[in-house]
């Protein structure tokens, strides 16, 4: 296995892991963003420049802002300040769900035949990428576009709705 790949993998998992364990929520968000940059570095290592820069631009620039805004703007209501100890039933359900997801991922990873890592990786120039996107994969591109727009409009509607509730409650 390639040394840098291992290094990158450890870096990504480590930053994501410590992000989960930190008390200070803003620091954990920033560590999460660091792990996204780790993923962008992985793409670079893999030779997919376009994907790496897109990842850095979209996740490092925009999604991190959305997460930070969400963290700052949600107000802890008085009622959910104290976290009640989880009843035994909830603990069991959590384990079950976690185990199922882990099982599915492990199964797919084991069963899929990975191609052997050949040394020279074909670097696709962006123009070729564009042609591919507009040609055979145009349908996928348009579907994701429509999905994202719908999600955006939904968010706006919910946010607009929320403002009225805030107005009502003194």
């Amino acid at each position: 296995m390639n040394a840098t790949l291992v290094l990158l993998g450890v870096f990504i998992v480590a930053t994501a892991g410590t992000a989960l364990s930190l008390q200070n929520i803003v620091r954990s968000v920033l560590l999460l963003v660091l792990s996204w940059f780790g993923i962008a570095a992985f793409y670079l290592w893999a030779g997919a420049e376009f994907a790496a820069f897109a990842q850095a631009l979209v996740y490092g620039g925009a999604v991190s802002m959305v997460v930070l805004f969400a963290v700052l703007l949600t107000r802890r209501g008085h009622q959910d300040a104290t976290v009640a100890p989880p009843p035994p039933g909830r603990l069991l359900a959590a384990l079950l769900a976690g185990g199922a997801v882990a099982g599915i991922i492990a199964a797919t990873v084991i069963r899929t035949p990975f191609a052997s890592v050949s040394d020279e990786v074909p670097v696709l120039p962006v123009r070729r990428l564009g042609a591919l996107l507009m040609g055979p994969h145009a349908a996928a591109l348009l579907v994701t576009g429509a999905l994202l727009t719908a999600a955006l409009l939904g968010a706006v509607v919910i946010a607009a709705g929320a403002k009225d509730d805030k107005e009502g409650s003194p």
Partner: protein
Amino acid sequence: MTAEAIELDSWLERLPLTLRDLLAGPIPGPWRWIVQDVIAIAVVLAVFPLLFAFLTLAERKVLGRIQNRPGPNRVGWGGILQPFADGIKMLTKEDIVPRAADPVLHFLAPVALVSFSLLSLAVIPYGRHLVPLDLDAGILYFFAASASSELAVFMAGWAGRNKYSLLAAMRALAQLISYELPLLLSLVPVVMLAGTLSPSGIVAAQAGWSAGFLPHWNILTPWGLAGFAIFMVAALAEANRSPFDLPEAESELIAGHLTEYSGFKYALFFMAEYFAMCALSGMAVTLFLGGWQAPVAILQFVPSYGWFAIKLLSLLLGFIWIRATLPRLRIDQLMRLAWKFLLPLALINLVTASFWHLSAGWGAAAQPLRWGLGLALVAVPFVVIGRRLSTGLGPRTYRYAAP
């Protein structure tokens, strides 16, 4: 490189390359490219901080001259050593970290901001052979680097644990994000017509002169003009410059997200702001003003990096000129301008660019019609949206009391 371009490579043009080979020559084969990259990085790290230093001096001198006063002229001849005096002052100033502050973030914010803005300087083609990093997706890399500087602004605002700096950080983020859109959309036509995301490719696409003196720069086309204007307005907002310098608006929230910073960290924030300004104007030169192309064929004896420097400095002078003249916009007007004015204009600019591209084949007789249509496609939405946006604002006539 076309044949004609090679013989044009005067020794002055090849100077940077010969210097680099001189330095990197003795290094054995496999390690040479590392040394060459280190040299390129060293040059960028030397040139741009110096440019930052003399840019602050130029800003204060030009601002002074506009306000009928000399500007700093005591340190060194005519104030030439003023930036170094400021630097020393900033170094000796006490660096106060508030007790309630989050020390890690407080320290990391300026470092992150400066490093991100420095990263974005790597892909701008400064000359024919002067591209530190010639990436195929260079433009995307540039905006990926400068987009993550918002993170550092938030860190600065949050780390100070100060009510004002948090408010200002939220405003700064809202401003940066909403101006990212028109910034990127205004350069899409350039990428579409140049057919590549690599900056040197875009500069090459703007090469050549029709009739010897009309360069094929993007700005000399209707969509290019509109794109350049939108790009510059959005660049002003991205670099927190004058009409949009809301985050550190003195008249409102004291020093915005910089309230809790002092000493050299404070200077780092300004260094980052100037780097962002230089990077964005460098990108504007590359995209719209033909990068290092000479404006007229016969003027090609001046080296390419000379032309790039002239264009970059004239844009920076424009930044300073605008700062001296215009007041600041309020946060809601700023948002309205971005979402309801620049964004629609940028989208319509795509239509204009596509019309321009499709009508490329028209004969010489149809050129005036082509230009007329192109300019109409740019001007009409500008006037219509402009008037709708500024309803209720306008010059007024005043009556006088009956004697």
